[in-house]
């Protein structure tokens, strides 16, 4: 079984973000990037599938990033993935979410797969639509928001997180599955894993390699146009009341809620 995990590098949540006023793109080069926290669950789940399925099961990491995105890929390889592929090309800059899904789908077709695992969303854009869009490009089932995953022969079964509980969903492979936090506890790369990762193969893929139509990516291919980015000011610090008596504290909150017409 060939498992491919699609991952993304994202700016550290704590980092201050700046935007290029001309291109209206995030200045990604000046901030520290990390592996998207959601993707760690997808990598862990892939490794667990490999461990339980055994045989010739492999785990490949796929990402789309500038060349230095290799750092994030190394972490995934350090966790135990077998190899990786990086789609990298200057023309990709400015691509929107839908173009991203298009390119990842082409990369997946190029690599080949039985099961694609993704995190539910990235912490920077928080779109949460890439897994379904990839599946649509590939014309395979999308089993999203999995909090449990099981491979039964040629079928995949998940527990899909829904607002009131979960739904048990079954489809035939090949398929795309996105996993939620809580499906597992991601392992840390071990020292041995990190050392071993240096020898693992990372394939560089160009747009030509995957057969991408450049008219569908970058600024030109984006279906949306950014007019502006406006930083949100910090919320003002409100009143802090030290309640020596709990009753007084509760009363204070109630009066505040009434004054604000919140209840």
């Amino acid at each position, binding site marked *: 079984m060939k498992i491919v995990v699609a991952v993304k590098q994202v700016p550290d949540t704590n980092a201050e973000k700046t935007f290029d006023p001309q291109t209206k793109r995030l200045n990604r080069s000046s901030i520290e990037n990390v592996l998207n926290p959601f993707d760690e669950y997808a990598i862990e789940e892939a490794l667990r599938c490999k461990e339980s399925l055994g045989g010739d099961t492999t785990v490949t990491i796929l990402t789309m990033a500038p060349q230095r995105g290799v750092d994030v890929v190394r972490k995934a390889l350090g966790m135990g993935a077998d190899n990786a592929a990086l789609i990298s090309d200057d023309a990709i800059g400015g691509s929107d979410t839908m173009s991203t899904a298009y390119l990842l789908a082409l990369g997946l077709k190029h690599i080949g797969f039985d099961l694609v695992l993704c995190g539910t969303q990235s912490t920077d854009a928080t779109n949460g639509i890439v897994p379904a869009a990839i599946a649509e490009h590939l014309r395979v089932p999308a089993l999203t928001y999995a909090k449990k995953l099981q491979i039964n022969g040629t079928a995949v079964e998940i527990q899909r997180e829904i607002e009131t509980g979960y739904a048990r969903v079954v489809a035939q492979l090949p398929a795309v599955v996105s996993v939620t936090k809580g499906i597992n506890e991601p392992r840390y790369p071990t020292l041995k894993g990190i050392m071993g990762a240096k020898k693992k193969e990372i394939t560089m893929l160009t747009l030509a390699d995957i057969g991408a139509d450049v008219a569908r990516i970058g600024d030109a291919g984006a279906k949306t146009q950014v007019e502006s980015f406006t*930083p949100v000011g910090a919320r003002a610090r409100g009143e802090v009341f030290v309640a020596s008596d709990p009753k007084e504290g509760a009363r204070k909150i109630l009066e505040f809620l009434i004054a604000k017409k919140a209840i």
Partner: protein
Amino acid sequence: MKAVVALVEHDAGTVRRSGLELATKAADLGRDLGVASGAVVLGPGADAAAQALKETPIDTIYAGAAVPVDRFLIDPAVDALEALLKERGPLTMLVPATNAGKDIAGRIGVRLGAGVITEANDIAAQDGALVVRSPKFGGSIISTLRFKNTYGIVVCRANSFTARAEAGKGEVVALAAPTAQYNTRIEETVVQEAGKLSVDEAGIVVSGGRGLGGPEHFDIIEALADALGGAVGASRAAVDAGWIPHAHQVGQTGKTVTPQLYIACGISGAIQHKVGMRSAGIIVAINKDSNAPIYEFCDLGVVGDLFQIVPELTRLVKERKGAA
């Protein structure tokens, strides 16, 4: 663009509040742009939901009661919507930022070559087109976007728009069920928390964190949420400790919520939590640690013993509601 259409979610015929918000917004945008407005309801109960939508300002209500969204995941909904959008389009579709809504946006976006804007909390008609605002990077940046081509999909956060009742002028049109065979089967749906509001849809959220000390203390959070008519949220610490399911988690690796009122109990307010709730209307914090970061960005902070303050607040809220 010929129309603005809202995808409205319902629970067995009862329209969700977010559905009423989206239908009202679609009707208002249609009016402002001088184009038709519509609402789509799918699956068992769609006919009852369609009747309820007659009490909104929407022009046309598309009811697909026979579309088997209860038996197959997403695919039937996508096929039914694709057929409708091609017939009535080009148009802009508003979908809720639920799991199903995001999946539908991704799939339809690819099929129609549409632009997709997510996490929207403001949409306005300007110069005959839509201008959409959406918070990004944990709410630290507001991006303002437009669609370049004719089909557009906007994934909308709950609590962004105000629902408005209006005497029914809506015409109900039946949608045919797709004839394709589907293989992504929903084998069963397990309801663990029947009748509870979801944390990302509720207008009021009461959240508990590490300060609760254990799962048994979530009952005081739930009691306050019930008294206020809100939902129960949680910090990552509480979820990671196994005190409450992940579906309740607010923050970076949980839900992003924008309720009118957010009450954080025993939550320190680390950046990973803040990014999930900083856009709330009013933030109230109760914590015993006067140095907790949450006091830097809440509207009212009360330093004290949450085990005594929360139940007392619940009592006061009930007393007030009883008197009102």
